[in-house]
């Protein structure tokens, strides 16, 4: 049984009994969609962001760096990609993190696995997928993100592209100032709560806007109107979805509810998945920041592997589903 069944009942009650909207009306359908999804996502966001931020207080980058230093390739890549799942990623941390990692002996490829997985497997996106599409799709999203991160790292490691990193990076000597790591449990919980509250406050308006638009599409767009436009038959749909996803970085929270409605109207799942991965992984601001440490050649390789990976995932799921 769906654990969110009570929420469905509640929104049906609000729409039909409280507001007296006719059953089976288009407006009623759209309203139920809106109420159900906005409550469901709010609950999931708070629960999962809190859990992830609590967990991550035990995995600060300083510790990650120690775990990954002098690791063998491959095992290191997998480990880095897994750790990347729970790590927060503010694009402004990318450069100090990158330099700190390679400087302390984390192999370049392993650093890249982490650098791909941290933004790509984004907990907010995972929450939204879990709430709106169920655990299977959420799991597919996380697993394909990890696979792309490992592959990217292994390729960059294999070709020994260290020379394509800006030269000054290798000259910096990182300090070893210890960062607060002896926090007591209460402090961790307090910080996790604070972080959850702040993040929720920042992204929930976008979620509501997205759900609102999604509800509108759900209620009013004609059935299957996307199937003909961007269906599996159209081979350009996946790359196009990726291209549209690139500038939408900060709006993952608002975009995914819209995508759910688009899937109902015939957008293939793989295309949607590629679109969502492009939003989280291929962000323009991050590319600009990474240019500070990567020579244009390496930056292009990085972007190319990611793009191919995301497009491949899109085709793969269009084909298997």
């Amino acid at each position, binding site marked *: 049984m769906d654990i969110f069944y009570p929420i469905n009942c509640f929104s049906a009650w609000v729409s039909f009994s409280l507001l007296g909207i006719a059953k089976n009306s288009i407006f009623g359908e759209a309203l139920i969609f809106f109420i159900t999804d906005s409550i469901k996502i709010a609950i999931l966001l708070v629960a999962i962001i809190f859990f992830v931020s609590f967990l991550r207080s035990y995995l*600060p980058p300083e510790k990650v760096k120690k775990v990954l230093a002098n690791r063998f390739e491959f095992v290191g890549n997998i480990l880095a990609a897994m750790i990347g799942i729970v790590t*927060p990623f*503010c694009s402004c*941390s990318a450069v100090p993190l990158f330099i700190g990692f390679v400087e302390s002996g984390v192999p370049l490829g392993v650093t890249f696995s982490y650098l791909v997985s941290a933004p790509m497997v984004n907990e907010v996106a995972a929450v939204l997928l879990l709430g709106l599409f169920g655990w299977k799709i959420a799991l597919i999203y996380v697993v394909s993100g990890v696979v792309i991160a490992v592959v990217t790292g292994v390729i960059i490691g294999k070709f020994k592209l260290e020379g394509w990193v800006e030269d000054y990076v290798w000259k910096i000597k990182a300090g070893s*100032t210890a960062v607060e790591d002896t926090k007591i449990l209460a402090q961790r919980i307090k910080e996790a709560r604070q972080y959850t509250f702040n993040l929720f406050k920042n992204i929930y308006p976008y979620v509501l806007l997205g759900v609102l638009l999604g509800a509108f599409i759900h209620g009013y767009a004609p059935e299957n109107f996307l199937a003909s436009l961007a269906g599996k038959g159209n081979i350009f749909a996946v790359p196009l979805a990726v291209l549209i996803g690139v500038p939408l970085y900060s709006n993952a929270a608002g975009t995914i509810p819209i995508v759910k409605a688009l899937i109902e109207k015939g957008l293939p799942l793989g295309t949607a998945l590629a679109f969502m991965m492009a939003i989280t992984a291929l962000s323009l601001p991050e590319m600009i920041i990474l240019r500070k440490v990567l020579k244009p050649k390496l930056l292009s390789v990085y972007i190319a592997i990611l793009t191919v990976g995301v497009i491949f995932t899109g085709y793969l799921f269009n084909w298997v589903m």
Partner: protein
Amino acid sequence: MEIQVFGSGCPTCKKLYEMTKQAVLENGLNFEVKHITDVAEIVEMGLLRSPALVIDNEIAVAGRVPSTEELKEIIARHNM
């Protein structure tokens, strides 16, 4: 007392810088708050996370923006 905010210039980093200046003022203190955006300096400090608040070469906050109350308390603690 030397107060520095490290960050590569992203909105979150600027927010911590503004909040720290505010907290210093509200504590009735008159210290200059420095905003350090040079990546090399950030790394040399041993920081992997930004933004960070460093007081007298000791990392007080890294990778998050605390509340104004907490900032004031941290600054007061270091000023003793």
